[in-house]
């Protein structure tokens, strides 16, 4: 045996053997790397699927009547299925008058973020009209006025009457149940005032002024809010989308050429020029004017401040979808004016009075109705006005201004 081992053979076989070994080693390396990276990619894909599903689960988890227990501007983390691998962080903050829910699901380095505006289906009481029991006169209906839905009325009740010699043309005064109202509006949600304060605080922020609002800007809700602040009046002719607040210490005018999507406007006076179409939340100290033909799409909001005598004016042929809210006791007559031919889909809430000649698909809650004309002030008069709770789509979600609305939370829209 040792003779065979000691036998000498041609050395030329050695480089050949080494070369083959080297080539095989390279193949092995490539094969192993391919297997490793394929596996790694698949594990990442699996985790990414799971994290995305966890974000969906977290949303269901928090919308299951948990959202109201989360304090505003706070967040918490939880392990969804208690297995130590399904972590999510849920945070709630205000986006104007609405609640913004942010969910981050994560596993190692894989993260999935979602942002959504939350609204409430509210209590199913078919409330169409709530007039506080503070007025000494009955609610008088004249012309082609319609009230479809349940009405909470002052103790003097409701009656048919005439305005400008035109009598009431309807067959029944209220197409729904009637109840006695209280002297004040129904209880508001505790979070409303802090939310409004948060927005109006933007007026006092000491931030750098912008010389000119950019022509186009988009900001994700994953980022910090961008505030475009000016002490001068602003004429908006821009395309703005997302997590942006335009703040002026003077006045904001919105040109119909501008394209605004889910942004916030804050100023003492806000004026929408004729023909503007978009989705905004406008917060004013004194005055909001929607010129004729303006379309503000859901979920928009028109809000005026509590401490000032503020007014909201809605001109003819306006379509507004969302909420109009006027807080505090405003003494202007009227504090909200709704022109004929305009349509509001949603909720109108004011501690003041409303002059209403248009159509409201949804709810009106107010101190009183008024008609202020040359002949004087007609208190608690409705002339050619429609309030129709049943025409509000069932899918409509309220922002939760009234405490009784804070039920059945759902997603209004997903934000980027």
């Amino acid at each position, binding site marked *: 045996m040792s003779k065979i081992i000691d036998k000498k053979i041609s*050395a030329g076989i050695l480089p050949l*053997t080494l070369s083959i070994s080297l080539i095989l080693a390279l193949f092995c390396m490539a094969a192993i790397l391919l297997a490793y990276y*394929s596996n790694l990619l698949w594990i990442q894909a699996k985790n990414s699927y799971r994290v995305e599903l966890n974000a969906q689960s977290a949303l269901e988890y928090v919308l299951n009547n948990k959202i109201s227990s989360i304090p505003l501007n706070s967040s918490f983390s939880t392990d969804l299925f208690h297995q130590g691998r399904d972590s999510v962080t849920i945070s709630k903050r205000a986006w104007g008058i609405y609640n913004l829910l942010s969910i981050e699901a994560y596993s190692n380095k894989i993260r999935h973020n979602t942002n959504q505006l939350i609204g409430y289906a509210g209590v199913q009481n078919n409330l169409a009209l709530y007039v506080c029991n503070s007025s000494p006169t009955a609610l008088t209906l004249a012309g082609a006025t319609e009230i479809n839905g349940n009405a909470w009325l002052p103790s003097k009740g409701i009656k048919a009457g005439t305005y400008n010699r035109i009598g009431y043309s309807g067959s029944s005064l209220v197409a729904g149940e009637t109840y006695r109202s209280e002297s004040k509006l129904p209880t508001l949600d505790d979070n409303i005032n802090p939310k409004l304060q948060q927005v109006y605080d933007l007026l006092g922020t000491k931030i750098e002024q912008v010389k000119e609002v950019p022509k186009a800007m988009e900001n994700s809700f994953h980022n910090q809010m961008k505030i475009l602040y000016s002490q001068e009046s602003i004429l908006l002719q821009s395309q703005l989308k997302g997590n942006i607040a335009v703040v002026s210490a003077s006045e904001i005018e919105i040109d119909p050429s501008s394209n605004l999507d889910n942004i916030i406007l804050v100023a003492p006076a806000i004026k929408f020029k004729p023909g503007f179409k978009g989705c905004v939340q406008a917060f004013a100290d004194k005055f909001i004017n929607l010129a004729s033909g303006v379309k503000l799409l859901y979920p928009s909001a028109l809000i005026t401040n509590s401490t000032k005598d503020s007014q909201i004016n809605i001109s003819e042929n306006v379509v507004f979808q969302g909420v109009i809210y006027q807080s505090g006791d405003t003494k202007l007559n009227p504090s909200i004016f709704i022109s004929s031919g305009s349509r509001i889909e949603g909720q109108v809430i004011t501690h003041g009075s409303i002059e209403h000649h248009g159509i409201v698909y949804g709810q009106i809650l107010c101190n009183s109705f008024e008609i202020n004309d040359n002949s004087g002030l007609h208190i608690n008069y409705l002339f050619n006005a429609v309030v129709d709770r049943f025409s509000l789509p069932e899918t409509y979600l309220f922002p939760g201004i009234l405490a009784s609305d804070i039920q059945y939370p759902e997603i209004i829209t997903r934000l980027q």
Partner: protein
Amino acid sequence: MKRSTHTFNINSFNGRISCSTLLETIVSLLLANIVFFFAFTIILNSMSGNFMIREYKAHLKAYSFLTQEMLERNFEDKAIELNNLNLQKKVISVENEPGLLQFEIKVTDRTGKEILVLKNYIRHEKD
């Protein structure tokens, strides 16, 4: 001083080596082959659908099954068979969370071996 130089001479391989040297080389070659064989087997397994593609398909089936059950808001246990895979949905009440249910989708092959489990929460209070 004489300059030292060394050049590789290809003619060196015209010489003779011992069989033991060749044996060592062959053993090395064999080992390399074995490693290559295993690596290649893993790749083949991964690519041929026995491992990754099967799991990928199971995932797709499980997700579409879960989505369908959520959209239909079907809150009952259910089991289906799809392309040699058994998909079983269990509806579990979540402790201390009234109104919240957990959908658990378990995917097994024909031998009963578990391939994956998906879990998801869904509300049912409004129904």
